[in-house]
């Protein structure tokens, strides 16, 4: 499953000291089920973090909390200096800073690709339509599907759709990107095109939080890999160290299962 190594050299890791996301002591429950337990995480600007772990470990919930798609019940999340509270103004601010890509792309099937990309800039950022379209075309070119701009999502392949979803997020000019298992709904031959796009994005210095099982991707671009289990961060380390010598038993077990065949 691991991605084949590409020729591109490992990108430079320019991590500033500036903090992009600061999570302190965050807890979340679904009813009585304790999904996230005492999460502490600091993400610096320019950092690329891959989160992995068995299903149900809370990794998706974690990044959905950052985007306020889920509400956390205890602890604090500060994104780019803005505390995530129940104040809608703050939520709006954070959401416009943070882009998100979903497992099932979640493109709007009744809008064309171009409309998908310009909708939020026009209505949320209040950017004139013409300018929004220009930006959209720029990003569609970056994800290499400018010629599909006037098609509908249903007419595109899964990989193309996910790339559009990335472009759609980028059109909002986010400073942070969250990826929620972006490749797990894709056929194998389409995974590469999406990962290439993500690598390209990483090379440009985007701060990224990525829930994925693509360990090749993690090795290549991540500067930190986080392993979660049972709602807790069990282990985090630089990719080399993480894969070579996992310290925790659970991590080892997980890695042997995912890489071992």
């Amino acid at each position, binding site marked *: 499953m691991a991605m084949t190594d590409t020729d591109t050299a490992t990108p430079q890791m320019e991590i500033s000291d500036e903090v992009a996301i600061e999570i302190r002591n965050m807890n979340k429950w679904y009813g009585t089920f304790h999904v996230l337990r005492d999460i502490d995480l600091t993400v610096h600007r320019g950092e690329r973090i891959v989160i992995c772990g068995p299903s149900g470990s809370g990794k998706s919930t974690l990044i959905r909390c950052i985007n306020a*798609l889920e509400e956390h019940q205890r602890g604090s999340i500060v994104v780019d200096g803005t505390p995530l509270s129940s104040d809608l103004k703050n939520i709006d601010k954070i959401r416009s800073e943070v882009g998100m890509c*979903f497992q099932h792309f979640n493109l709007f099937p*009744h809008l064309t690709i171009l409309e998908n990309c310009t909708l*939020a800039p026009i209505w949320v950022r209040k950017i004139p339509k013409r300018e929004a379209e220009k930006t959209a075309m720029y990003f569609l070119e970056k994800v290499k599907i400018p010629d599909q701009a006037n098609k*509908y999502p249903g007419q595109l392949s899964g990989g193309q759709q996910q790339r559009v979803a990335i472009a759609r997020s980028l059109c909002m000019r986010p400073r942070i990107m969250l990826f929620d298992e972006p490749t797990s709904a894709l056929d194998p031959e389409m995974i590469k095109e999406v990962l290439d796009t993500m690598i390209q994005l990483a090379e440009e210095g985007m701060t990224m939080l990525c829930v994925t099982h693509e360990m090749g991707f993690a090795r290549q671009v991540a500067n930190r890999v986080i392993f979660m289990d049972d709602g807790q961060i069990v282990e985090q380390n630089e990719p080399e160290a993480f894969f070579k010598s996992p310290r925790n038993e659970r991590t080892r077990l997980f890695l042997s299962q995912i890489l071992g065949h």
Partner: protein
Amino acid sequence: MSDTHAESVAFVRESVIPPAPPPAKEAGAIRWMRENLFATWFNAILTLVALYLIWVLLSGVVPWIVNGTWQGSSLAECREILQGNGGGCFAVLRERWPQLLFGFQYPDYLRWRPVLAFFLLFVAVPPALFVMFLPRWTLIVTAIYPFLAYWLIWGGTILTPLFAALGVVAGYLAFSFTERRGFVLGLAAGVVTALAVWWIGGLLAGEFSRFLRLEAVVSRAMGGFMLNLVLGIVCVSLSLPIGILLALGRQSSLPVVKGFCVVFIEFVRGVPLITLLFVANVVLAFFLPPDANFDLILRVIIMITLFASAYIAEVIRGGLAALPKGQYEAADSLGLDYAQAMRLIILPQALKISIPGIVNVAVGLFKDTTLVSVISMFDLVGMIRGPILASTAWAGIYWELWAAACLMFFVVCYGISQYSQWLERQLQTDHR
């Protein structure tokens, strides 16, 4: 399989076998009949029974139509012309046609107005249904239509519908200018502006009531099939927005809003329409201001609209539920607020899914407009049951009248449902 040596064990076909005609038994009418009519002995019996039924039906209906007469001005005269040849007495339709269509009170020299309004309907509706095929500006026609139709059917000065339309336009403009500062604010501004324009317009229309004036017709004078159509169209169009609001309310996380919507919807769906018409007829008047002139038609429109909106709300709720949760999340993550997400993302898709259901409700509602005859309004059924069957000339005639009523409803309802199925297929094929 790139090896193509003819003598190798592997086989590669190099010529195509031409298609041959099937054995005679397997083709043509005989095969069709054997497969479709006489496959088993049970099937054969069924076929014979069905053929007999069709024969009975046709032998009754065909002479009735063929021998029927369109002459005569009363049943007695008609019977004389027919001389017992089993034909129908369609003269009643010829003579009472205007009454069946317009009731007996709509002034006959003004009938061209509702007729014109009816035909304009065919111009006004397509843009709304073919948003994806026609240029967007054609929607203006649809938007103008209700006001024009009101003016044509009810008459009065053109200022009334004009200002009603102006109010809507002004409200919309105010809304779109202030919307950037928040949806709620925009909505409030829109409503206030619209109300202001309507108030001023009301004063002006009262003052210049002779300006471009069509002769006014009171709604009491509406009748016949026109009443069914007016009630059906008005109530369905009014109930759509209310139904959408109710459906959104029922999905809402606010207990008060949700509770009200659930209670309203379940209440309305739990009682028969006729009891609601009784309310319109004998109860509602107590709860409306006595000086405002809410006549029976208006009260009936209110109640039927409420009735229809509960059903439409349920249909739309189904559409909303059918949308994947990801659509809501994507809208959220892009930073769209609730109003924007609903308007731009959720409702367009939910409504598209709901179209067949909405059409079903609309057809059902249109059929149910005949119930107003029970509260002594003279719609098509009311006209037949009342004035026509009670008249000295035509008492005792029923097959022809009821057949005509059936035909009129069938054409409209069947037409709508076929059309909606066609539309559904169109909507399915595009985009995918």
